[in-house]
């Protein structure tokens, strides 16, 4: 009876060990190898440019619904003009980075796991190794760097579009006073909120890419293995984003208060 938990613990620890070794190899590659600009641009295009639609739609509708819900509650206590301030602070520090990261994890993390997993089961990764190319240098590093650049930029877009959409809903649909709303928004939105969003999205980008690449590089055999790897890449990255978000909020609030 004790064998099963022991095996599970052993498997989890082995997985964490392999993941740590991969991350260490990524850091080593970044410090010792030259990153191909062509590979980086290709990944930036796929991760950044091709994710625009999904991220912008998510940002816009999140801003709109947040504005409407906040207004419905604040209107009862005659605090209508604080609505956009709540939207702005929430979008910058929490919803913008988290929802953008979750959407990118679903689109890009899954794609990375599926692509690298297929390369593994069709011996393309072994072929890379026989061609004197380290798979981490060629496959993982450009994806990690590109995701860590693209996610903060996508988050900035998502936040901007979310606030704009909230403004349009609040002012034109719910008849909130635009002047007071904008003043309150500027008054309550601190540069620390924006900075927190940026730092979080940078870390979330790293989580998405390393999880997707790890799952792809270590996937099981056949189509079933690739399918599992793809699902696990999205699930694990999403859970890691949500859990780390809580701890990052606590940590960054303390650290940024010192600025």
């Amino acid at each position, binding site marked *: 009876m004790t064998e099963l938990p022991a095996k599970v613990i052993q498997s989890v620890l082995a997985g964490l060990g392999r993941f740590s070794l991969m991350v260490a190899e990524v850091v080593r590659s970044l410090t010792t190898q030259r990153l191909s600009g062509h590979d980086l641009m290709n990944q930036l295009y796929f991760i950044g440019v091709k994710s625009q639609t999904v991220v912008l739609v998510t940002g816009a509708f999140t801003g709109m619904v947040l504005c409407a819900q906040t207004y419905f509650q604040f209107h009862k206590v005659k605090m209508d003009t604080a609505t956009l301030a709540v939207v702005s602070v929430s979008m910058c520090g929490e919803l913008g980075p988290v929802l953008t990261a979750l959407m990118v994890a679903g689109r890009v993390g899954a794609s990375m796991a599926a692509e690298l997993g297929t*390369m593994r089961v069709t*011996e*393309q990764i072994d*072929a890379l190794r026989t*061609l*004197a190319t*380290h798979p981490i240098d060629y496959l993982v590093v450009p994806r990690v760097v590109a995701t860590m650049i693209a996610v903060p930029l996508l988050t900035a877009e998502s936040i901007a579009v979310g606030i704009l959409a909230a403004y349009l809903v609040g002012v034109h649909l719910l008849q909130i006073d635009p002047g007071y709303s904008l003043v309150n928004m500027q008054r309550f939105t601190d540069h620390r909120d924006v900075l927190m969003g940026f730092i979080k999205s940078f870390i979330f980008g790293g989580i998405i890419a390393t999880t997707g690449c790890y799952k792809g590089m270590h996937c099981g055999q056949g189509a079933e293995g690739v399918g599992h790897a793809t699902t696990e890449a999205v699930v694990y990255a999403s859970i890691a984003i949500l859990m780390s978000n809580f701890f990052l909020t606590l940590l960054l609030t303390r650290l940024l208060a010192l600025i």
Partner: protein
Amino acid sequence: MIEVRQLRKRFGDQQVLDGVDLTIEKGESLVIIGRSGGGKSVLLKHLVGLTHPDSGQVLVDGRDISHLNERELLAVRRKFGMLFQSAALFDSLTVEENIAFVLARERNHPPEEIARRVAEALEMVEMPGIQKRKPAELSGGMRKRVGLARAIIYRPEVVFYDEPTTGLDPVVSDSIDKLVVRVCERLKVTSIVITHDMRSMQTVGRRVAMLHQGRIYTTGTPADLMASTDPVVSRFVRGISDEKEHTF
């Protein structure tokens, strides 16, 4: 050039390699034969450093590569070219980009030189003019030829072939065998071919090693093995199953 000493590898409960000893001389054309699932491909992966053994050594030019890390192995693998069973072409790249992969990564070859060498490699494998095609547009035989062009473009010292004729019809198989011989003779490379195709063995092999029960059971010329009276060798080369034994 390559020496294997007491190589052992176990996957779960199965002892796949159980003390393999083998020496491969420079310039020779060696064929390794053996039953499906008998560890031929595992042995080949050890020779290239794609798999680490549980014990034993793989010496390449006198240096033990069995415990080198991935980055140290990259320099050793520069001496090797490998044609995979499935060709393992990179789906996202064109034929030209696949073949030029190593040269393009080295960043010290001008584009004209790369284009010329790709054309030469394709000429050598009798596939001229397909530079712009994607791997998905190629047949099985064409993919193997392109895989071979990719393996030889940077002039390796040793070319490994993992079941080069598997999945091909007899005519295409014969043309691939002849291509293997031609590449070996023209480029003066050491060829190590894994196969269970007896026709292939006779066409490409100058020396044959038979892997059986995790060890090198016997070595000799193709003619020696074809004429062997040893029951294990004789049954294998003639394709006769033992009714007392599970053969799958």
